[in-house]
């Protein structure tokens, strides 16, 4: 007698599975070939999307996405490390793009469980960045735009490389925090940018991408250029801070700069521009406009490391 409910249950179960599968594929089949509603989990991704011409498809960005200006008007889905799952779901995205070097992989699993499609890009090295631009372009259905953008950036990088090529490498400190002193370390794209700009990152052999540097280390490594970069806060006269350490060449020769922009801190499409701006700080003599008809950049060769 008790077998009857089980006998009924089995075919019922099978039928519901079939219906579910059909529905899922039906849903997939009716969605557009390329994602039209995109949520960006990172400012660099947002910039990339706009640069590739997909700005009109973005339906959600983080509170830190401030470039280009249009990005600020887009709906916000939370911060960089803590995007809000609810806000994201509320935007009904076709695709969410995040970066590997953050909390996004973990968040991605949660989102996928809710049926949201997530794609992650790597932005550790320069190559990664260029590849990721192309990947995003492909996912969104316009690989040519990706090609164009990466080629443009590659050209910018090459131009800078040529300019600083004659000059010897210059020991450089790129600091992203002051109290405590946080310097850019090795194995990341900013370190590569410093190298491309003709500099020698004094903390470049470190395994970590960021590290607290003690003052004595900076003194010992004697950088000729010190660049303080950072997001947001106004720092007046960084040179004053270093004044008591006059044995550092950068301090003695008054080559302590404050670089306001985050072009070189965001692994996005503006790194080419940022590279040039940094190179101008590291090797100003290579960018001096020609005087008395000399070729531009020729003042570079005789410069000291």
């Amino acid at each position, binding site marked *: 007698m008790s077998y009857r409910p089980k006998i009924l249950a089995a075919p019922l179960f099978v039928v519901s599975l079939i219906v579910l599968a059909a529905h899922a594929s039906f849903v997939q089949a009716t969605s557009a070939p390329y994602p039209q509603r995109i949520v960006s989990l990172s400012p660099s991704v947002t910039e990339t999307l706009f640069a590739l011409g997909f700005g009109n498809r973005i339906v959600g960005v983080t509170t*830190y996405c401030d470039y280009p200006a249009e990005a600020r008007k887009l709906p916000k889905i939370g911060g960089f490390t803590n995007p809000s799952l609810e806000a994201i779901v509320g935007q009904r995205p076709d695709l969410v793009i995040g970066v590997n070097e953050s909390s996004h992989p973990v968040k991605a699993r949660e989102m996928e469980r809710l049926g949201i499609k997530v794609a992650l890009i790597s932005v550790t090295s320069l190559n990664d960045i260029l590849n990721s631009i192309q990947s995003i372009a492909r996912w969104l259905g316009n690989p040519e735009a990706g090609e164009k953008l990466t080629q443009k950036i590659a050209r910018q990088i090459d131009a800078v490389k040529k300019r600083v090529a004659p000059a010897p490498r210059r020991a450089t400190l790129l600091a992203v925090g002051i*109290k*405590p002193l946080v310097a850019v370390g090795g194995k990341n794209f900013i370190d590569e940018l410093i190298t491309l700009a003709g500099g020698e990152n004094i903390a470049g052999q*470190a395994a970590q991408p960021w590290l607290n540097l*003690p*003052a*004595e280390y900076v*003194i010992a490594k004697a950088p000729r250029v010190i660049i303080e970069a950072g997001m947001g806060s*106004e720092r*007046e006269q960084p040179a004053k801070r270093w004044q008591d350490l006059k044995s550092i060449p950068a301090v003695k020769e008054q080559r302590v700069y404050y670089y306001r922009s985050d072009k070189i801190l965001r692994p996005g499409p503006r790194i080419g521009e940022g590279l040039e701006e940094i190179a101008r700080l590291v090797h100003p003599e290579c960018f001096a406009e020609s005087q008395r008809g000399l070729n531009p950049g020729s003042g570079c060769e005789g410069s000291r490391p």
Partner: protein
Amino acid sequence: MKVLDRRKMILVNGVLLILLALSVIACALLGPVRLDLARAWQNIFAANSDAEILFRARLPRVLLGVAIGGGMAACGVVLQALLSNPLACPQMLGVSGGASLGGILGLIFFPNWLLPIASGLLGEISWVPLAAFLGALLSMIFVYRFSLFHGRLHPYHLLLSGVIFNAFIAAVIMFLNSIVDFYQAQGLLFWLMGSLSTRAYLTVAFIWGYIVCGFLWLWAKGLSLNLITLGEEAAMQLGVETAALQRQIFVASSLMIGAMVSVSGMIGFVGLMVPHVMRLIVGGDHRLLLPASFLAGGIFLCWADTLARVLLAPAELPVGIVTAFFGGPFFLYLLYREGGKKPAL
């Protein structure tokens, strides 16, 4: 009868003083960077990188470490007496939490305001430490009011208020941590785990003066501290104005802790561990325990900071991590070995 006499006082403090001097010299010479001592001394006033490493980067830091290590240890001793609790430490009063919060808020909202004092030779002095000290004062007043019952500071209530206040502050700090950007988060870590990286001799001198004054004042109360560990009643019956003493100790140690945390963030473990270790070595009489702990605390933090600079070179660790990491197991080992025996001297 074996009791504390002048000979023992001079012997113990003398030895510790010598060890301290040696530690200062050694720690100033050690670091992730090799130092050419001869060159450092030769042109000491010129822009000489070795001289700068020694005198601008390392020495102020070492001296600060001595002062703060000593101050934390001394505060630990008196707080253990005040709260009649061997587990008491400077973090318990809530003052360090308030100072950290003040410093963090200062870091977030106005990190770049500078005091109108000439920088350069003295390094920069920003408003952040002052914000931290203000936070310390406010939390001291707050905890004090909540521990006052019938005009008396009851140790039990003090402990409870301090712990609850700290928990609340920790929650606020964690909240701030979740909304600041990546670079500010580094600054937060500095406050929570402590760091001695200051270059301003003015700051170091100020802290030294402040801590030494506080220490001497507390040392004068050594005998009363002995009595108060017998229990509030017994102390009263033996002649101590306990209500006044409790107030004074609370205020003095809060002010000291507030100043220290303002400059270097919360460096934990020193105030808990050093008093215990010294108690095992020299006994529980506060007239000796206080100066001995002060000196030993300075030695300990000096070396801990050197390790913090050297362990993961070129990166430096927050010194609070080193104190906890090495201090804890060492303390357990000492307790295991010496726990049941008499003091060594």
